[in-house]
Structure formats: C-alpha cells, structure tokens
C-alpha cells in the first residue's frame, strides 16, 4: 500500500500530465464521460460497470499515448490512480449512497451499533486478554472513521487497510510474546469489536462504493482480503443476535432493551427540550413564571427539563393553555413510563444506586423491584 504522500503526488502528476496540450483527447474523453453520467438516473450496478469499463478503456488509451511512451508499469498505475480519484471525486454525489434503501441500511447499522456500544465487552467476542489494548484499538477506530471523509475509492480502501494494519501489529506483538500464531481467529473478533467501537458513518454505503468503483485490478489479494473482513464484520453486526455472543441470552435481550429505552428517552428529552425552547420563544409565558419555586421544582428545572408551566398558578392559566398542558401531560406520562421500564431492565446492582440517587432528588419512581412483574410490563 502506498502512503498518502505518494498517492497525492501521483494525483498531482496525473493532473499535470492532463494539462499538457497533447493530452487534449484524453481530457475530452474524461469530460464527456463525466457529463454523460448526468443524463441518467443513478443505478449503482450499471454505474459501477460503466465506470470500470471506462477505466479499462482509458488504461489502453494511456498505454498508447505518446506522453506515456516511455512509462513503466508503475507510471501507468500512477496515472490510473490519478484518473480513478479524479473521476470518482467528480461523480461522488452521483454515485455515493444514491438510494433511500442504502441510507436506510446505513442508519440501521449505525443504530444497532450504538445500542451494542452501551454494553458490549471484548469478552463477549472472546477476544483474548493479550489483545486488550485500548491504545491500539483507538488507533484502529480512528483509521476506520476516516473512511467516510474521503471521496476516492482508493483512499477509502486505504483507511480500511490502515485500520487492519494496526490490528495486525497488535496481533503480531501478542503472537511474539505468547508464541502463538495469530490468524483470522484472532483478527476478525478484534476487527468486529473495533468496528463497533468506531461506528464508522455510512458503513454499508462506503463498502458498496469501494466494491463498485475501486479499480477492479486493485481490489485483489491482500486488499481484497481485508476488505472482505470488513464486509464480514458488517454482516456479523447486522445479523447479530442473542446467540452470536459469549453472553447469557436473556442478559443480551435485557441489555438491548435497556439500551433502546435509554435511547428513546434521550431522543424524546432532546426533541421536547427543542420544542419547548421554540414554544418559549414564540409565546409570552414569561408572566406566568414569576412565582416562587419550591425546592423540588427548582431542582427539576435546573436539571434542564424545560416545562414552562412548572411555575404557573391556576389563576394565571387561560383557556388556550389547556391544550398545551394536556399535550405536555401526555408527553410526560409517556416518558415517565419509558423511564420506569428502562430502570426495571437494569440488574439489581445497577438499579440500586440509581434509585437511591433519584430518591435523594425527591423523585418517586414506581419501579417493581420486589416482584418480578416488570417483565410482563416491559414485553
């Protein structure tokens, strides 16, 4: 794999040659190819084939071109890398995540990962303790997260390669100290774990884009192997269920449930506080809010909930407030119920300190800790 410096010089070299007067025919071919794309609706499989065919025909043209007459294989390759980067940068918005379906898949994976992140531990994937290395993992995650920021398929692919290289170094160091050969048995679980920690944006779309638009002669051998491993990691995460991990199945379901509820609560709180903020700006509730607050109410307000009626007295209310109040009441009940369920999904050891804290804040939650009846409610 080339480093980024040689890649960028090869790209500049490409642009430089393309500015040469004798390249006019090549430039014309490239431009008309790019323009021709805007005539059709995006259709990934066709588009991939068209681009790959174009790469091949351009390679022939470049090989036969006077400017490359004395060129080595490496020079030709540089020109082709430059061409791929140029074309795919120009066509990026036309070729990356073109369907609603793709963005839906991206979103689903990302959401699932964000749930898994709340409880998944390396042990659940049987990652050996010698491979526990936060620093290496973090480095690998960073590399993987870069993938989405690049436009050229070669750059996206090299983010994957860099990520895998970091993991391989970790494996090799462990192999040397433990005298065991490191293979796919160790590699894949770490890659999956790193993928979950990284939650790389648009994972599905990036993989699809690389597969379709990376020059076919470059997505082979080692690059293809590591690419396949990330596809494999994505597939594992997508299909992951209670049976996929070294973890009690009920515990897994509970954790997923709790993560979902916690997420829902955060989302709701977020959207309500935005909504309330807006309402507050729009209407003049302010005169209803001057009353003195009791300590408990004040505390709730300080916690960031944004409920303007907390300070209101009944005589301040007008008819039009009823609708808003009712809406808020329903909203609160929904959230409160979700919150109670979420707390009930926690294990006793996780729940106790939380309840204690809530009690100290004067919040009364009706969680069923004595009985196990919460299981029926939370179904």
């Amino acid at each position, binding site marked *: 794999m080339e480093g980024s410096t040689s890649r960028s010089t090869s790209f500049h070299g490409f642009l430089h040659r393309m500015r040469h007067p004798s390249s006019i025919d090549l430039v014309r071919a490239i431009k008309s190819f790019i323009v021709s794309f805007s005539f059709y609706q995006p259709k990934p499989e066709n588009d991939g084939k068209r681009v790959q065919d174009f790469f091949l025909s351009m390679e022939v043209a470049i090989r036969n071109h006077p400017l490359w007459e004395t060129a080595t*294989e490496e020079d030709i390759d540089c020109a082709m890398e430059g061409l791929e980067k140029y074309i795919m940068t120009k066509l990026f918005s036309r070729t990356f995540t073109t369907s609603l379906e793709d963005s839906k898949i991206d979103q689903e994976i990302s959401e699932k990962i964000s749930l898994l992140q709340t409880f998944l531990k390396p042990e659940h994937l*049987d990652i050996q303790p010698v491979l526990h290395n936060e620093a290496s993992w973090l480095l690998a995650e960073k590399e993987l997260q870069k993938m989405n920021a690049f436009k050229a398929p070669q750059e996206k692919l090299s983010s994957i390669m860099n990520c*895998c*290289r970091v*993991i*391989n170094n970790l*494996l*090799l160091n462990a*192999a*040397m100290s*433990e*005298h*065991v*050969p*490191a*293979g*796919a*048995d160790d*590699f*894949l*679980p770490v890659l999956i774990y790193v993928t979950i920690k990284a939650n790389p944006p648009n994972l599905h779309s990036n993989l699809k884009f690389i597969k379709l638009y990376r020059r076919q*002669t470059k997505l*082979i*051998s*080692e690059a293809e*192997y*590591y690419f*396949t*491993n990330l*596809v*494999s990691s994505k*597939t*594992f995460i997508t*299909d992951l269920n209670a*049976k*996929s*991990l070294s973890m009690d199945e009920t515990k897994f379901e509970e954790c997923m449930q709790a993560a979902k509820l916690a997420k829902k609560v955060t989302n709701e709180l977020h959207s309500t506080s935005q909504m309330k903020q807006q309402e507050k700006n729009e209407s003049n509730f302010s005169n209803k809010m001057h009353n003195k607050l009791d300590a408990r109410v004040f505390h709730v307000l300080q916690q960031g909930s944004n409920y303007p009626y907390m300070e209101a007295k009944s005589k301040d209310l007008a008819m039009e407030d009823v609708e808003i109040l009712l809406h808020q009441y329903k909203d609160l009940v929904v959230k409160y119920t979700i919150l109670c369920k979420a707390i009930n999904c926690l294990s006793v050891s996780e729940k106790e300190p939380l309840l204690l804290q809530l009690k100290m804040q004067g919040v009364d939650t009706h969680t069923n800790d004595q009985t196990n009846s919460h299981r029926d409610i939370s179904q």
Partner: protein
Amino acid sequence: MGCGYSLPDRDSRQLGRPNSENGGGQDAKNLRVKLVLLGDSGVGKSCIVLRFVRGQFDPTSKVTVGASFLSQTIALQDSTTVKFEIWDTAGQERYAALAPLYYRGAAVAVIVYDITSPESFSKAQYWVKELQKHGSPDIVMALVGNKADLHEKREVAVQDGMDYAEKNGMFFIETSAKTADNINELFEEIAKRLPRPVIT
C-alpha cells in the same frame, strides 16, 4: 502453546521462490490462486501456512503483515509459477455463517482437521458439504489431516480420511506443521491439480 521449536530444518528440496509482487497479471505461466483455509479452531491452519510461507513453525519471527493473509509463490518443474494467496478464516462457530464471503471466488479450498480430534473431522465434512453446495463448481478441494506427528493420540484413522476424500473427489494428505512433514507436498500437489488456462 506455540507451534514448538525442536524442528528439523526446512525443505531439503529447494523450491524456486520468485517473488514477483505484481501478481495481478494472470498468464498461463504465472498463476495467481486464491486459496481459502477452512476448519475448526486449533487444528493447525495457521501453523501449516506459516510453515509453508516462512519455512518455520515459530510464529515469533519478525514479519510485517498479518498472518491471516499470506502469499507464497512456488515454481513447478514445467517452469510455471503458482502464487498462492492464502485466506485464513475464523474457525469459531459463531463466524461459520460468514464463510461464503471468504470462499467465494476461491480456486482452492484446503479443509483441515486434527487427527487427534474426531469432532474436527466431522467439522471438516461439514465444510466439504457446504462447499459442494455453495462453492464454485470447479474449486479444487484438499482434505488435510494435521498433527500427524501425534501418533499416540490419533483418533481418526488414516483410512477414514482417505475414504472420505476419495468419495468426494478430493485430494487427501496427512501433514505435520510441527515436523514440516508433507507441508510442501500439500501445496505442490494442489498446484498440479489446478486447471491451467489454455495457452492461446
């Protein structure tokens, strides 16, 4: 435990190892071959590959790439070369469903079991069936009984491996990554069985 260190020296017969990295070109004289390794965890897949690629059983030697993808080129007597690109797969049960991603497009599948473990032999048969159903029809399959050095612990008879392989039209060999026994033979035999592109 490591792969062990009291080893006889590497191949007596010297194999040519032209290391032309530009494996992209597929011509009649220089084949590039995707080989996928399948089998239970612990049967010795990694050790076999290390033995073949680096001529050693010792995984502590300094290398620059991972051990899950390795390549090695061998020269045959007819002065052709075969570059094996060896794809290791995770053997744990929970990754079994991902195997098709790895064996898709493979020209060779090497299915390994451990002669001291009947379970690993059953697992090998599972892989054979799966490849017969879902692998590419002209894939070359080899069945490998590894750890042949552990005679006293043998639980799978040579004949059983041989019979199974014969019934399924596969090449069969018993190897020891520890003593290097039959490791090169395994890959040479595979190379001979590869369909050759027609020279035009």
